[in-house]
């Protein structure tokens, strides 16, 4: 279940369908991407989607981070949820890659999450968030 | 025989299950027989050991001798730095490993 959500709009009610099912039927508004799904397959449909759930069956499998960034880079504005083996120490990276809601299999301590998100004031590189990378702070 | 081994969480020291507690000396290790997994889970759950696992060993007059050379090096210390092992003054220690 969704434990942390960084959006102000309503949580979507519709259950998510698989990518294959979505590409077959046209009226779903929520899709679930497995690690080996190609996020770019959704690019033509982004304005119809309110929720994309990216599965993390194992925390070590980092393909979902690329999927997330690709979707945000393509202009996706809906909810982007990380689901599965999501540990508190990954939340900050996931936020930077564009995830704005989290459904971890094992419950996370909200204080720990808050701490994880506020540990670093500065970042070195661009990602899908609005953080200004250090090189830009240096050179304006 | 089967020995239960692991590390002290805070210090990282190699430790051996003695039957009632944990010792850094493999001579104190006891044969856990069929009960190794159960003891392992209990001790790990109570956080008295980190990263525990079970190894094979043979009983000798000097105490248990791990079957594999890697475990013997782990029990005593690096063969190339006898001064850093648990038995720096023992000239026979190297032979025990190899």
């Amino acid at each position, binding site marked *: 279940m969704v434990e942390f959500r960084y959006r102000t709009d309503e949580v979507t009610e519709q259950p998510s369908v698989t990518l294959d099912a979505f590409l077959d039927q046209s009226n779903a508004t929520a899709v679930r991407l497995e690690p080996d799904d190609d996020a770019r397959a959704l690019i033509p449909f982004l304005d119809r989607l309110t929720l994309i759930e990216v599965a993390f069956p194992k925390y070590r499998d980092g393909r979902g981070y690329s999927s997330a960034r690709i979707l945000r880079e393509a202009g996706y504005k809906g909810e982007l949820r990380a689901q599965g083996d999501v540990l508190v120490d990954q939340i900050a990276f996931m936020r930077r890659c564009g995830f704005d809601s989290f459904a971890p299999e094992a419950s996370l301590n909200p204080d720990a999450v808050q701490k994880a998100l506020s540990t670093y004031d500065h970042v070195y590189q661009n990602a899908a968030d609005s953080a200004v990378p250090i090189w830009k702070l240096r050179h304006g | 025989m089967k020995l239960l081994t692991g590390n002290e969480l805070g210090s*990282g020291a190699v430790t051996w299950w003695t039957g009632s507690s944990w010792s850094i000396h493999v001579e104190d290790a006891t044969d856990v027989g069929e009960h190794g997994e159960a003891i392992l889970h209990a001790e790990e759950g109570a956080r008295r050991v980190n990263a525990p696992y079970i190894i094979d060993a043979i009983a000798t007059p000097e105490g248990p001798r791990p079957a594999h050379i890697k475990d013997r090096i782990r029990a005593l210390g690096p063969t190339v730095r006898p001064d850093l092992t648990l038995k720096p003054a023992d000239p026979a220690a190297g032979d025990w490993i190899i």
Partner: protein
Amino acid sequence: MYKYDHYDQAVVDARVAEFRDQVNRRIAGEITEDQFKPLRLMNGLYLQLHAYMLRVAIPYGTLDSRQMRMLAHIARKYDRDYGHFTTRQNIQYNWIKLEECADLLEELASVEMHAIQTSGNCIRNISSDQYAGAAADEIADPRPWAELLRQWSTFHPEFSYLPRKFKIAVVASPEDRAAMRLHDIGLELVRQDGALGARVFVGGGMGRTPMIAPEINPFVKADDLLSYIEACLRVYNRYGRRGNIYKARIKILVHEIGADEYRRQVAEEFAHVKTLGIDPPLAELERISAFFAPPAFEATQAEPDRSDPDFAVWLDQNVKPHKQVGYAIVNISLKPIGGIPGDATSAQIDVMADLAETYSFDELRVTHAQNIVLPHVAKRDLYAVWQGLRDAELANANLDLISDIIACPGLDYCSLANARSIPVAQKIATRFADLDRQRDLGELKLKISGCINACGHHHAGHIGILGVDRKGVENYQLTFGGSGAEDVSIGKIIGPGFDEDGVVDAVEKATEVYKTLREGNERFLDTYRRVGLEPFKEAIYG
């Protein structure tokens, strides 16, 4: 060399605080070892054969005396009074306590050092040429590029859970002193129409399936570099194999889909990534480059006085030409005969720090051959430097000779190992202890790995030794013909393995065959390449 600004310092300070918190949670039992393991690995802390082992990053192998002294202090205070310099230009401590690790990292952070991303499936230390800024053949100092990449790769949110570890090397000379072609990404700085750019190689590596990186792009401009590398990494993160750790490096992906297809995918991704504006302006590379400006060399023509014969021998073997008149590059061998390759005591580390501060514009380098370099020594100071090294048992004149062995820690230290590597190195060095004999054999790069992970780079050895476990007993395979230089090649196994004494005898027989067959100035490697394996095989196996 690069100096942190307040942003850089803030990042390492925050990292120390974060790790301290993670360690506290682990010790209090709030997180399990399974949950803690990836966190401590991303901070270079392994649970190794004897204890926790910490790998401290030395970015592109460059450090100053203050940092070197801190490494000595760490060895004394937190470890057993020595450190081990590695084949990726880092340093390892083998006896660290978890409960003291955050304090250790805090002390490191006070001198702009850290252990970030020295382990784990993320982008590791960017390595480079140990003669950078001093070698006459470089077209530019590669280290500003390495520093740019270091910052870009630090806590990269998309690339922290890659299929496997990722190693990048940057060089800028036709002579490859960093084994660049055997890295996941190798960059060679080149000039095109007056502009500086990088030739990009992707898919090299050693380990179970050694491969030489093919060229993926002949020229990437400086202000396209990070976008291009980002594209390379994204293709890998998305499509690298994840089921089998022996098939998960990028070399497997490039090999399986082919360099052409990989190049095509990267080009497509690059075209997209380039639109995101992630490349810093050239001003950032210029800002970093300013830290690598040449030191204030003096006008000096003095040559060293060669009258001390021991000094002369060391001068001829370990000291290399510098691009600046009157200066030289000093190589400090951490390979004493019978000693442990790459190890240095805290006292020795302090000596090297002092010598660097006094005689080398306060700079040192760590080489991937596990030695140390003083890059900028005035020739008139060479004798004083040599005396200081000699008194600290750091003056072995064996650079690139057979006793200048690269050896991984092996089964004496490493839980991944199948066999001990250090005793083999010790026995070989002792067998060939006579320096005249070594010099007669000439350049002979011998490299030993205690397991297939090849941290000793045995595939790249003129003579390579691989330790294996044969039914519970240590056994050693011999390879010939590898090279990590610009004449890169992967060594071939010569035949059945040997026990410890057997492999030392076999190496000796191989050198005898070489001496019989060599022509002109041929090195062992050249003779082997010319005559092939047969003569060696006959002599060794009879």
